[in-house]
């Protein structure tokens, strides 16, 4: 089949189109993708030398990041966090949720932060300090395991023999 192997010139569509127009490629030899490409051309034409327009990548920040930073400064990282597990919120997320709830009652940010810390400490749902041990916040491996075990125990046990007998 006649075709150019210079992939940097034009794109597959423009090269095949040229071959079809000049008669170097017979209409019956037209590749099957040709009509599909014509009907649904890509949004951006493929071109080896194409350069994207100058775009500055913006940093992603949220207003609550300040509270997050304060939380981690005070309490440190709580250890392992499973990003794939959406079942348990992280201690920081719990803290933030409580922070948002109590936001209306306080005008000063620092007072609010301390108040939330106090409430959370009473509930024992934040680590005591940077070097604190595991707490029953539901995020430690041990608590996740025990909750899974208790869940499986509460489910009724199925006896295969009962299922097979006709009643």
């Amino acid at each position, binding site marked *: 089949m006649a075709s150019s192997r210079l992939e940097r010139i034009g794109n597959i569509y423009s090269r095949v189109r040229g071959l079809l127009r000049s008669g170097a490629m017979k209409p019956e030899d037209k590749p099957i993708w040709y009509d599909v490409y014509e009907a649904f051309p890509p949004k951006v034409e493929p071109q080896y030398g194409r350069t*994207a327009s100058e775009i500055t990548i913006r940093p992603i920040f949220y207003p609550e990041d300040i509270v997050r930073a304060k939380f981690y400064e005070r309490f440190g990282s709580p250890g392992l966090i499973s990003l794939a597990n959406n079942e348990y919120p992280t201690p920081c997320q719990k803290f933030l949720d409580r922070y948002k709830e109590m936001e209306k009652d306080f005008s000063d940010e620092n007072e609010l932060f301390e108040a939330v810390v106090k409430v959370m400490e009473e509930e024992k749902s934040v680590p005591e300090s940077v070097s604190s041990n595991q707490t029953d916040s539901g995020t430690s491996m041990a608590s996740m395991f025990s909750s899974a075990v208790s869940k499986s125990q509460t489910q009724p046990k199925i006896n295969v023999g009962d299922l097979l007998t006709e009643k």
Partner: protein
Amino acid sequence: MIRTIANRLKWNTVRCFTQTCSINSDAFLCQNATSLKDDQLADIKESEIKEISDPLRFPDYFGVRKLFRVKDLFDARVHYGHKDGTLDPNMKPYIFGSRLGHLIFDLDKTAKMLQDALNFTAHIAYRGGIILFVSHFPQHTLTVENAAKQAGEYAHAREWDFHIFTNSEKVYNGVTRLPDLVILLSTLNPQMQEHTAVKDAAKMCIPTIGIVDSNSNPNLITYPVPGNDDSPAAVQLYCNLFRDAILLGKSKKPVVST
């Protein structure tokens, strides 16, 4: 003759009627698209039926847009890019932003481009084209090969031998039919260089669909899909989607082709 075509049309393209009222001049038919009857359909001229049954006239003939939602992409971790410093400048339009040094993809843009890619795949499968899944990462070999097997297509998920496309007659000792579409689950090889298949497919005028991560170059890919190409969950999602698109395209094939 008309009756048989009409019957076929009835259970095959009822959905399409609702989308493309402009094609059909009969306004009554368009309004009652879901409750068509045989005698009403028989009134359409044969040429009109031919026009209607041409899948290329429909924006989404195979219904590939319903295959996924943006939330599915998010759950499969498609939005995670590489670190700031590895960004390929050509990927800038598809980046949402940088979260503490890690690039995040704009999933709205990814979803649109993925829909285009799936639509193209379904059309190629419908037309009886050969589709080749390509990946070079050992950890994804099984996923990719299984997807190709389930779709009844081909996979090359091992080390890429040079000249497979460009000198196929010598490599395979005979005239070789090259694939009509190459789907690259990652456009890089494990050495972080561009996969040879990208260049060779462009040389041989084979269209490519490629998952391009933030450190890949999308220029030579015909239908680039910006997204994470490293996470097993993401690769599994792409494989499932392309497999389903191929099966959708093939499922329409024996009904409409005359």
